[in-house]
């Protein structure tokens, strides 16, 4: 019963009124950004990051986490009602969710998405509580070469899953590493790539970079499009609670989706997106009536919704145990933890138990909040969906401007954000992937440090990466991943996930 004590401790942290409030704010904002097209969790978290510097770190991480898993659910609302995924991870939900809505079953579709997310979130949190501490113990034995190898693996998996061209994704990873190393060198204190600008001595801030690449650039792309009014489902919503038959058809897809999502979420790179696709594929394959998929099968909503939610819990494992982010959201959380002077890694669980167990428990509470919040509030979300884009985009821009300025009360940060906004806009036009740039940017300084330490350890021999068993195994995996696109089946799968993300 050793595992229960820390969980109880976590609940005692998460149930403190202040933390409950921040958890509630997080899931509320998360659902909102999931509903609103053009503002995802990455932009929302980076936007709110500066504002959280005034609150205790645990409350802040609880809120930022709430935004992440809240957005997963919010995204499914738009998928079902408007056939526009608010989030890349909700793309699959469009297939059957929207069809259900067209058949007058929008209520059960939304209901099962909420229940599926809740059950999966809960299972994911239990998995996190069980798997993270032992993994952290193993990770204590890792040295700089192992860390370097794992970071290379993380970037490789991300570029593999990024969709579009793997070549372009790798190029963005290179740029990310360079941007991450702008500023004073940690060892020699020599300025690198600062071009005489004092503002760059401390490096490029994650917030202006992310808000530019994901927030401002998205506005640019949407503004130049001649979009018509979104078609919103007008039939009145009734019967949000799924029937017994719906439950029978959804229960096992939810459980399978949760388990799949959790383990795929641990893998670096787009866990939530890929897990929803895999879950849909699995359910269709094992279903007795595969022809119903795409025509409004409730299992096609329940499975992927469960998968994308438990993947968010899985994504915390590499962050909390190894200090390695597996996607762009985790990269921002890593940045936040660094700012709070709580560097994530194998020692985080023992040195800051209130952060680890408090966050996990808050995720359980947050999932419960999402369930009771979303069923009665669906009417409100639909009304928000009706906000016209000409009014919405100035609001997004305003939040980005305030977010960037409030970092250091400096307009230079806004200029940096605008620069990355233009870069992000051009990257979207020319189909370059922003997620690998962000991840590489966060990992850049850590890679630099671990590579240099590894070489110092080995007396300048690169062979150190191939003589240590874990390193060797990781690099073998890297090579396999590079060769995988050559297999036709995997190449096709990459393409379908990639297209969904790009869209």
């Amino acid at each position: 019963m050793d595992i229960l004590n820390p969980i109880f401790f976590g609940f005692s942290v998460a149930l403190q009124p202040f933390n409950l409030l921040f958890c509630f704010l997080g899931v509320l904002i998360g659902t909102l950004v999931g509903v609103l097209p053009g503002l995802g969790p990455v932009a929302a978290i980076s936007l709110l990051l500066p504002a959280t510097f005034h609150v205790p770190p645990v409350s802040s991480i609880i809120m930022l986490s709430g935004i992440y898993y809240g957005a997963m659910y919010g995204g499914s609302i738009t998928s079902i009602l408007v056939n526009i995924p608010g989030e890349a991870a909700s793309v699959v939900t469009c297939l059957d969710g929207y069809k259900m809505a067209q058949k007058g079953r929008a209520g059960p579709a939304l209901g099962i998405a909420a229940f599926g997310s809740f059950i999966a979130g809960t299972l994911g949190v239990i998995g996190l509580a069980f798997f993270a501490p032992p993994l952290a113990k193993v990770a204590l034995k890792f040295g700089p070469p192992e860390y370097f190898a794992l970071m290379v693996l993380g970037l490789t998996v991300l570029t593999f899953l990024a969709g579009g061209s793997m070549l372009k994704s790798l190029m963005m990873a290179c740029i990310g590493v360079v941007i991450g190393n702008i500023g004073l060198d940690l060892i020699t204190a020599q300025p690198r790539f600062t071009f005489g600008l004092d503002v760059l001595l401390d490096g490029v801030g994650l917030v202006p970079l992310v808000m530019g690449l994901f927030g401002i650039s998205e506005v640019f792309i949407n503004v130049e499009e001649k979009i018509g009014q979104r078609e919103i489902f007008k039939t009145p919503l009734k019967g949000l609670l799924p029937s017994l038959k719906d439950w029978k058809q959804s229960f096992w897809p939810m459980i399978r989706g949760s388990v799949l999502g959790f383990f795929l979420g641990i893998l670096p790179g787009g866990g939530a997106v890929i897990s929803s696709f895999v879950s849909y594929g699995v359910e269709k394959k094992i279903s007795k009536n595969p022809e119903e998929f795409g025509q409004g099968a409730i299992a096609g909503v329940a499975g992927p919704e469960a998968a994308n939610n438990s993947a968010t819990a899985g994504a915390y494992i590499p962050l909390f145990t190894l200090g390695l982010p597996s996607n762009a959201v985790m990269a921002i959380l890593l940045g936040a933890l660094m700012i709070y002077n709580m560097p994530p890694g194998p020692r985080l669980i023992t040195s800051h138990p209130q952060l680890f167990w408090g966050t996990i428990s808050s995720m359980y509470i947050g999932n419960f909040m999402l369930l009771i919040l979303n069923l009665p509030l669906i009417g409100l979300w639909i009304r928000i969906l009706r906000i016209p884009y000409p009014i919405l985009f100035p609001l997004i821009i305003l939040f980005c401007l305030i977010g960037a300025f409030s970092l250091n009360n400096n307009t230079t940060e806004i200029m940096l954000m605008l620069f990355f906004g233009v870069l992000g806009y051009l990257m979207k036009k020319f189909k370059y992937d922003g997620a690998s740039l962000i991840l590489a940017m966060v990992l850049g300084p850590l890679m630099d440090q671990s590579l240099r330490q590894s070489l110092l350890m080995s007396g300048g021999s690169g062979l150190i990466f191939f003589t240590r068993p874990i390193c060797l195994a990781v690099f073998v995996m890297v090579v396999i991943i590079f060769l995988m696109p050559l297999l036709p089946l995997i190449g096709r799968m990459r393409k379908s996930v990639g297209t969904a993300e790009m869209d």
Partner: protein
Amino acid sequence: MLNSDRISSLFWLAAGIGITLLSIKYDFGNFLSPGAGFITFFAGALLSLLSLILFISSGKKRGPQSDLKALWKGLDWKKVVYILILLFIYTLVLKPLGFLIGTFLLLIFLFKVKGSYSWWKVLLLAFLITSGAFLLFQVWLKVQLPKGVLEGMI
């Protein structure tokens, strides 16, 4: 026809070469004692190599999708330039004018970019959102927004 991949690969090739050369200047060091430019040297060299591969492979791609002009075809790109100029001006005047006046003016222009709302509606919206943002960030979240010409009055 200008191939979009060809153009972008040339840009990144130039960036890659620049990064590699600067890394040498920042001190590459050696394998026994890596310097400040060690990892960025490899990142720059790899970027150059990958860009070169993209440049060569892009030569094989033909068709309207890879055309540079097609990326902006049928789109209102002038609005992007307009917003960018507005934001640039906003950044310059934010401190002297202050958050309240600067943001109010910026929102008026932004609401007019895509919407065809009446002036009174635009003014009302800009006023409400500016004051709402001020209350939320300055009063509640204690973000120090510039007061500009209203310094001493608020």
